[in-house]
């Protein structure tokens, strides 16, 4: 089967113009292919380039050279050649990204935020419950949420939008043990529907059948 995501010879450098133009090689010659419906876990030391790779794929970071191709339903998008509007369209249709940090409109309650993705109230509430957010938080804007609660909402927002590819950047890092398990189960449900996932994490989910492959990054290279 053709990969839904193919990364080839990807290079990325950060140039810090405010610090004498200092250059930082964050990704060197990354090759990565994701088969449909698989879950790939990306681990490695902090600063090894894991999040940068996810951000380059999502194109929320710029790339020096290489290629990133998304193939879904016979549609093929070269993410680096595509113009900005095509990238936005490709994200809307095919790629979801969840990061450690929640960035949403401050005044809207958690349930309403999930409903904004297009879910009806009951489904949105079911999803928040499945992720493990307590019902007392549903009508509260996330500004006052704890780190873990924000993370639950981030995950719920990501899962609320049905996308064939999900990029997950440490989405369970600040959850307690029980909620981590709940989150993994929610991801497993998506995997069963054929969603392809690339997840950055420092720990391997202990849910049988979820993780298909573990890759380790070291100093900008994929081992």
């Amino acid at each position, binding site marked *: 089967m053709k990969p839904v995501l193919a990364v080839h010879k990807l290079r990325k450098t950060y140039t810090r113009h*405010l610090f004498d133009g200092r250059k930082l090689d964050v990704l060197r010659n990354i090759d990565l292919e994701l088969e449909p419906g698989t879950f790939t876990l990306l681990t490695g030391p902090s600063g090894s380039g894991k999040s940068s790779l996810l*951000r380059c794929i999502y*194109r*929320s970071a*710029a790339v020096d050279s290489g290629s990133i191709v998304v193939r879904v339903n016979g549609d093929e998008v070269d993410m680096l050649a595509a113009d*900005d509007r095509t990238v936005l369209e490709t994200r809307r249709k095919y790629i979801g990204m969840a990061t450690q940090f929640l960035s949403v*409109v401050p*005044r809207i309650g958690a349930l309403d935020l999930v409903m904004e993705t297009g879910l009806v109230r009951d489904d949105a509430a079911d999803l928040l419950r499945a992720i493990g957010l307590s019902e007392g938080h549903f009508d509260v804007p996330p500004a006052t949420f704890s780190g873990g609660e924000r993370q639950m909402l981030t995950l719920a927002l990501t899962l609320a939008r049905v996308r064939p590819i999900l990029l997950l950047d440490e989405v369970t890092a600040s959850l307690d043990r029980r909620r981590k398990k709940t989150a993994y189960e929610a991801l497993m449900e998506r995997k069963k529907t054929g969603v392809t996932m690339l997840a950055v994490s420092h720990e391997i989910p202990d849910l049988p059948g979820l993780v298909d492959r573990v890759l380790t990054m070291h100093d900008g290279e994929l081992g």
Partner: protein
Amino acid sequence: MKPVIALRDVTVRYPSGVFGCREVSLDVYPGEVLGIVGESGSGKSTVLACANLDIAPTLGSVEVMGVDVTGVGGAERRALRAKSLGIVYQTPQQGLDLDVTAGGNVAERMFGAGHRSYQHVRARALSLHEAMELPLERFDVVVKAFSGGMRQRVQLAKALVTSPPALLLDEPTSGLDVSVQAKTLDLIRRIQREHGLATVIVSHDLAVIRMLADRLIVMKGGRIVERGLTDQILGDPQDPYSQLLVSSQLA
């Protein structure tokens, strides 16, 4: 699909000899929000004024709905604005007559667009007044007596009363206190989505830009120094000035 507004290599040179902007090209499509950031004097407002046909470019062209409208004036410009462009200025007195009632300000734009039935104009203005979450009893009150947040809502009502496909926002919330700012931004975001408005927002507040803009242009010294997806420019700026701007504001 055609852009609702397009600027092609627009240069503005003021009579004083000062350049307002140089070789600026941009386009904004239905349903999307284009942000423009940059320091004071970078040309942001000049670009917006060109898009609103307030200023004719010295060089280059302006297209609205795919039609070249560079340099139009008079009745043609008034009609074009009323049909296609709504604008909200930073200061209400730029966009409103403060001695006129909220309803009167909004109605004036409809009369300007050629509507003649008083009943129809009043009903339509009233419905916008309500949609902008303004208190009904304020409809016949002069805008001078309104708070800053309410004045901006009147500007929004006026901008949208003729259902234009484009909305131009020049620092729409920067004079407001934080809670009113958040409320106003929620409203702008909601109506932008509901009506699929092609929107250009000029702001120096990157939090506002992050919340609203899909794509972003960074200006310095009248020129565009970087353009791209908002999350990419705010998260991984490439140009030295963009890096300075982002690090100054998020530090």
